[in-house]
Every structure is written in C-alpha cells, then in structure tokens.
C-alpha cells in the first residue's frame, strides 16, 4: 500500500512538472500583481524585487515632448548597457503605471519600440535590467488630449 501510494505521488509530481515546464521555459507568467499596482515603485518591486532604479545616461528614452494624442504616444527605449535581461516602460500618472515589460534573449538587440497610452501629462520612465541592477531614463511628456478617459 505504502509503495503504491508513493509511486502515485511521484508519478503525479512528475506529471505536474512536465505540464508546468513548457510554460516556464517559453514564457514567464503574466506579472498580474505588477499590473495591479498604482505606483511605479510598487510595480518595479513586483517585477524586479527592487523599487528604485539608478538613472543612467546609457539608457535612452525617445518620446515626443508634446503628444497631440495621448492614445498613441510613440516610445523607443534603447541602451548601450550589456547583458540586458528586461526593459520596462512605465507612465507615472496612468491608472496602471506599468505599460509593458519585455524579456530579452541574449541575441536580442536591447532596443524596443512601441506606442503607448497616456491619460494626462506625465513622466515616462524606462527601466533596464541587467545582471548589475536596474537602470533608468525618464522624460516628461505633455499630453494635449488624454488617452485613458472617455
């Protein structure tokens, strides 16, 4: 009896590992908690375990000074830092500050370009994670027409 139960337990454990493994390997789960927080600091803590990145001239954030339409604000984040693991884009005054977070394989060029929504004039923050920590660049973007209300 004892051994059969053991066997079953081992079997089910192995099975659950097999089921869990592919998802783990190919993509980390969507960081729900990070997308629920209302502050940049909390979002970064949820994402990276640390809330305050070091501003760095090696991180570049390209965004317009004035966004005519807050629904579509073009943003490019790039960096000359080596060994980039992740890049995140956050908007301080959005209801959910975390907009997007990217995980990069070793052969990915550390530069991402996308378009984001901004509810109002706000600071946009780009955060880059390398093995040596979190680095950031920020920019104030003036929004003429907000992109979150309606």
């Amino acid at each position, binding site marked *: 009896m004892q051994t059969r139960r053991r066997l079953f337990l081992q079997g089910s454990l192995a099975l659950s590992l097999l089921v869990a493994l592919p998802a783990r390997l*190919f*993509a*980390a789960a*969507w*960081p729900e908690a990070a*997308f629920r927080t209302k502050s940049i600091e909390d979002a970064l803590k949820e994402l990276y375990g640390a809330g305050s990145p070091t501003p760095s001239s090696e991180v570049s954030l390209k965004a317009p000074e004035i966004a005519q339409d807050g*629904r*579509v*604000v073009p943003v490019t984040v790039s960096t000359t830092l080596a060994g980039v693991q992740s890049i995140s884009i956050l*908007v301080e005054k*959005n*209801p*959910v500050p*975390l*907009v*997007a*977070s*990217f*995980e*990069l*394989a070793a*052969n*990915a*060029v550390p*530069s*991402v*370009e*996308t*378009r*984001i*929504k901004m*509810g109002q004039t706000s600071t946009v923050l780009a955060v880059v994670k390398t093995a040596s920590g979190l680095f950031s660049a920020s920019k104030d973007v003036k929004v003429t027409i907000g*992109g*979150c*209300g*309606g």
Partner: protein
Amino acid sequence: MAERIKLRVKLKGDIAEVKSLMVHPMESGFRRNPDTGEYFPAHHIRQVTFEHNGKPVMTGQWGGGVSTDPFFGFSFKGAKAGDSLKVSWVDNQGESAELETKIQ
C-alpha cells in the same frame, strides 16, 4: 477571422529588424461608454512572444496601457535567410493569434 498579426522582417547582415502590428482593441478597462456611463471591460493582449527558429528571442508582457492595434519593433542578431520567426499573443479573455514567417 481577419488577420490579427502583421509582420515585416528586414535582414541586415545577420541582424533581423522586426516590425509587427497586432490587430486588437487594447481596452484598458478605464474607459467609460459615453451612453451608459459604464466601463468597457478590460480586453487587452497580455503576452506576445517572438520565437526565432523555435527559441524565444523577445517576450512582451503588456497591460491595457499599450495603444490600440499595438505596434512593436525590435531587432535580433544571429538571423539568416530562411530562418523562421513566429509571433504569438494571448489576451486577458483567452483569445490568441499566431503567425509564422520565413525571414528573407
């Protein structure tokens, strides 16, 4: 269903320049219906994955703050003509789409 991913890859040496466009409402959940005053339920892509020859090269975790019909561009090294690039996304309502292309 109409095509929900548009993908363009340009090869420059061994660097592939990827430009992609997803067709998606990207409803944040913070927008009200002007007629009823009720919030439109959140409906946005959560995760988008790019795989080069079956290996993930870039994964995006997205919230409702990414613009409607999201554009996303990036580059990666080690690409050559004939390689495969696959894009797939899943949203918060369980919808998904994928597209595979050969790099030329």
